[in-house]
């Protein structure tokens, strides 16, 4: 992974971020700030050194770091997420198609134990 600055696109998915502050506290380049909405925001993208710490330590999978040269969008659209790229490591057909937004969520397992 490149240690040069300014080669990455850093994206927060605000719907998933819970504002725990891990990326804000430990990013070596101080890329993130806590917004008034209680979520992390990318404030200094050009400082990012691409170390990957935030992606590995975000408990909510809410931050993504991608090379700026990547052909595809850094923000996975919901369709992209539903269809994993086929490859030797991932021969699966992928998760079931997304339900329509009105479908009530069905959880299995104990909600409260």
């Amino acid at each position, binding site marked *: 992974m490149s240690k040069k600055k300014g080669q990455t696109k850093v994206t927060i998915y605000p719907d998933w971020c819970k504002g725990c502050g891990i990326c804000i506290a430990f990013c070596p380049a101080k890329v993130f700030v806590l917004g008034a909405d209680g979520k992390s925001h990318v404030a200094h993208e050009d400082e990012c050194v691409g170390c990957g710490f935030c992606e590995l330590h975000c408990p909510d999978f809410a931050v993504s770091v991608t090379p700026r040269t990547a052909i595809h969008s850094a923000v996975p659209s919901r369709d992209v997420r539903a269809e994993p790229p086929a490859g030797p490591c991932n021969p699966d057909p992928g998760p079931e198609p997304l339900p329509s937004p009105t479908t009530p969520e069905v959880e299995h*397992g104990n909600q409260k134990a």
Partner: protein
Amino acid sequence: MAQVTELIHNYLRHNKKFPHVYCAGCGHGIVLGSLIRSVHGLGYSKDDIVLVAGIGCSGRMAVYVDFNTVHTTHGRALTFATGIKMANPKLKVIVVMGDGDAMAIGGNHLIHAARRNIGLTALVLNNNIYGMTGGQSSPTSPEGTVSATAPFGQLERSFDIVDMAITSGASYVARGTVMHVPMLDGLISDALEKPGFNLVEILTPCHTQYGRKNKFKTVVDMYTWYKTNTMKRELYAQKSPEEQQKLTPIGVFRDEGWPGLETRYAQLRTKLQEQESCQSSAN
């Protein structure tokens, strides 16, 4: 650069509600990410994996990840997993338990799974507390810590999960933390590839039920604590006994490669079948 977060999203069940139910900063989500990267990195198909979880916040992982999943009862995940592995040894069976799940109600199953050396990968998410049920002390709550059931400080001594697994006969035993994720990915990948009973204890913070009562202002403080108070076991070994008291060693503590019960069972079956066919041809 691997598209780390996209990869994880590909393994989640997007018909479940996200963000997941875990509290902000709960380390359980980091463990899930690490497990997904490890499985992906080793090239397993989702269908080769069975994730068996107990009850607790940790157990809810079974809801979110798109492997074969079984969300069992509190403390009994290892018994279900043992049955699955014996019935179909080709499956990679991963067992996710909390410290309460694995060491209290399920403690007996843990020591016997280790004694049998059944080929499972057990991940014990140790947050030193019963998270889901309101913060009661668990068998790994350190002496002196405050909880819902020990408002004046825990009087009992705690279990060391790694020591317990080693003593009981597990073939591979390691400890990692959610602050040391590249190392954790390595430990989980290692454990998945080893034969026999593999256990990885994962230190993970529960600020909601444990941290707040034990002088951690924020969840970030707990991650900082893991950073400064854990140390690779090789470096830990060089410290003085006084320094060691304040530190928790992390890394691989046992790696024997002993064959799992399911393998020994298959060997026995082949042997007996051969004997039988010899006898019938002699008759």
